[in-house]
C-alpha cells in the first residue's frame, strides 16, 4: 500500500445522533478516518462503541428519524455522500460500495432464490440483461467458492449452510466491482473453522480484485490476521489508529492496552489470571465533554474529566491516539 495514495473514502468529523424520548444519544462523535485503495482497514470495538452506526451513517442506511447524521463529510469519488441526492446515493450503495452484514440468514431474502438476489444489483446498477446477469452471477458464485454454481442459482437461502450463505452475501457485495467493501462482523455468526474459510476467501479476493475493505469486528484475533491498519473505537469515538503491527506491538491508548491484555490465546504461554477492564462502557447521552474511557481508566487525572481528548500523533508513522496521557513520557501530554 503506497502511503502517498489518495484515499478512496475519506470521512471527516462524522457525527450521528439518535433522538430518543430520554434525550439525544451521541452514537458517533467526530469520527475521522480514511481508506486507501486496496487497503484493509480493521475497525475494532465493543457493542455500542459506534462502529456499525458509523458505517451505516456514511451510506445513508440509518432510518431518520430517529437517526440524524448531523455533521461531517464523506468524500467518495469526488463527491460528498452526505450531500448528494438519494437517487445518486442509491447507485453508490450496492454499486461502488458493497456491504456484507453479520447475519447471512437475515440479510438474504428468504422468498427469492439466490440467483435473483445476485442478479438484482447487476441489472439495476450495471444495466445487464437477464442472460448477461446470469452469466455474471455464475462467475461470482464460482469466485467465492460455491461448487456447482450454475445449479445453485435456483436454490433458496435456507438451502445453504451458514458459511455458504456468507459466501453468497460476499458474491452479492462484489457483484458490481465495488471500490470499497464494508464488512460488518462478517464472520461473527460463523464457527471458527468456517470463519477461517471465509477469511482465506477474503484474502484471496482482495489480491485478485484489489478493492479497499473496511472490516468491522470485536475480535482482535481476526483483525491481527487480515488488517493493514486498525482503528479502535470506544464510546462513539476513534480512540486509536495505527498500522496493525504498531497497534498490537505498541498500543498508546489505555483502552487498547487493556483490551489486548484481557484476551487469552490458544497459543504461547497461558495466563494464570485474566486481566480485567473494570466497570461498564459509557452511556452516550448528551454531547461528550470528557474522555469516554475515564471511568475505567487506570491513568485518569483531572484533565480527563474536563476535556475530551483529540487524536494526536504518537509512536511510529501513521499512529495516533486520543488520550491526555503520554505513555512514552510516563505523564500527561504537554500542550
Amino acid at each position, binding site marked *: 500500500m503506497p502511503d502517498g495514495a489518495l484515499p478512496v473514502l475519506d470521512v471527516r468529523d462524522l457525527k450521528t445522533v439518535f433522538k430518543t424520548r430520554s434525550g439525544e444519544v451521541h452514537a458517533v462523535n467526530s469520527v475521522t478516518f480514511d481508506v486507501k485503495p486496496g487497503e484493509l482497514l480493521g475497525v475494532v470495538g*465493543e*457493542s455500542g462503541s459506534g462502529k456499525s452506526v458509523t458505517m451505516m451513517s456514511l451510506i445513508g442506511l440509518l432510518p431518520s428519524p430517529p437517526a440524524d447524521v448531523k455533521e461531517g463529510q464523506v468524500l467518495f469519488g469526488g463527491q460528498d455522500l452526505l450531500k448528494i441526492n438519494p437517487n445518486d446515493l442509491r447507485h453508490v450503495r450496492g454499486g461502488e460500495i458493497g456491504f456484507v452484514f453479520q447475519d447471512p440468514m437475515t440479510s438474504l431474502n428468504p422468498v427469492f432464490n439466490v440467483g435473483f438476489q445476485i442478479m438484482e444489483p447487476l441489472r439495476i446498477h450495471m444495466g445487464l440483461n437477464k442472460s448477461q446477469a446470469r452469466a455474471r452471477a455464475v462467475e461470482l458464485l464460482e469466485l467465492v467458492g460455491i461448487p456447482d454454481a450454475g445449479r445453485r442459482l435456483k436454490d433458496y437461502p435456507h438451502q445453504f*449452510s451458514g*458459511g*455458504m450463505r456468507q459466501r453468497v452475501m460476499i458474491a452479492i457485495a462484489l457483484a458490481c466491482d465495488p471500490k470499497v467493501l464494508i464488512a460488518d462482523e462478517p464472520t461473527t455468526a460463523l*464457527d*471458527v*473453522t*468456517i*470463519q*477461517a*474459510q471465509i*477469511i*482465506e476467501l477474503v484474502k484471496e479476493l482482495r489480491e485478485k480484485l484489489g478493492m479497499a475493505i473496511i472490516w468491522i469486528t*470485536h*475480535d*482482535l*484475533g*481476526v*483483525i*491481527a*490476521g487480515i488488517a493493514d491498519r486498525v482503528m479502535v473505537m470506544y464510546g462513539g469515538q476513534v480512540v486509536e489508529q495505527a498500522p*496493525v*503491527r504498531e497497534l*498490537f*506491538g505498541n498500543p498508546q491508548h489505555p483502552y487498547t492496552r*487493556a*483490551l*489486548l491484555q*484481557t*484476551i*487469552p*490465546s*490458544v*497459543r*504461547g504461554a*497461558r*495466563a494464570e*489470571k*485474566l*486481566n*480485567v*477492564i*473494570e466497570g*461498564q*462502557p459509557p452511556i452516550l447521552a448528551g454531547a461528550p465533554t470528557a474522555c469516554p474511557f475515564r471511568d475505567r481508566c487506570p491513568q485518569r487525572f483531572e484533565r480527563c474529566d474536563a476535556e475530551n481528548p483529540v487524536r494526536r500523533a504518537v509512536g511510529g508513522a501513521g499512529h495516533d491516539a486520543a488520550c491526555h496521557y503520554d505513555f512514552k513520557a510516563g505523564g500527561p501530554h504537554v500542550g
Partner: protein
Amino acid sequence: MLDDLKPAGKPLVAVDNLKMHFPIYGGLLRRRTGEVKAVDGISFEIFEGETLGLVGESGCGKSTVGRALLRLYELTGGTVKIDDYDIAHASPEALRKMRPTMQMIFQDPQASLNPRMTVADIIGEPLREHQAGSKLEREDRVLELMDQVGLNRDFANRYPHEFSGGQRQRIGIARALALNPKFIVCDEPIAALDVSIQAQVVNLLEELQDSLGLTYLFISHDLSMVRHIADRVAVMYLGRIVELAPREEIYAEPLHPYTKALLSAVPEPDPSIESSVERVILTGDVPSPSNPPKGCNFCTRCPSVMDVCKQVEPKFQEVRPGRFLACHLFEYPTPDTNESATNGAG
C-alpha cells in the same frame, strides 16, 4: 505441571454411553421419519473440583449434553451419575430432591431471567421452591449471594432490564449458587458478552470455584477462554467426543485431526505470531446429524482420511494416560503416504 494432569479426588459426574436422539416427524400423518442424533454415545467423567471444558462448533451437541446431564431431557440411552445418584432413571420426586446439587448457568442472560421479577425474587426463587429456611433467612441469603457475585445490594429490588449484560449474567450465577450446588453446567456463559466483560465473568467463576469447591462443565465454542478456565478439555464433533485430554496437552499437542484443525483455525491476537500460524483449513461443512456418514463422523472433512475411516467407526479409547481419542490414526501406525496424498485438499 504434573499435578495439573492428575485430577484430584473421585469422579463427581460419570457419564456412560449417553445418547440423546430427537425424533423428526414428517409426511401427511406426521409419522416419525427419522431422528436427529444430537448426542450419540458419549462417555466421560468429571472429577470433584474440576472444570471440564466441552468445546465444539454449533450443532455438535455440546449444549444437549449439558442439558441431558441435568435431565432437562428424557435420555434416549445411557446413564448419568451425579454424586453417585443415577440421574437418568430417577423418579420425578427423587430427581427434584437432587436438583439443589446440580444447577445451570445459561447463555443468554436476557432470556433466562424473568423480566417481571425483581433481582431478589429471581435469586430467591430456588430457595422458595426448595423451602430453604424462613422468609428472613432467605432474604439474608439473597443479599449474601449478591455480595458473592459482586452485585450491589441496593439493587435487589430492580428488574433485569435495568442491568447490563455482564451484571445480568451475575444474577444468573447468583441464582445458580443459591442452593449450594456441587455441580454447575455453564452453557456458553460468556458468549453473549463483550470481550472486556467476558474476563470479569470468567474470573468470577474461577473465584467461586476456589471458595466454594464447585465442579463445572464449561460449554463453549471459545477455545481460548476454555484454555483459560478448564482443567481438562473434551472436543465434540457431530454428537460424539473425538478427543478428551488435560488442558496443557491438548493445546500443546492435539492428536485428533479435527482438534488440530479447530485449534489452528482460531485467530491469533498478535500479528507477529499470526503470520507464522500454520492453518489447516477444513473444506466443506458439518454433515447433518440426522444422516451422519458411515464410519468416522469426521471422515467427510478429515485431511488424513483413510479407507478404514469410511467403513468402521473408531472407538473412543485411552491412547495415552489421561488422553482419550476416537481416531483410526492411533489404532494403526501413521501411514505417511496416505497423509501426503490427501493433505493438498486444504
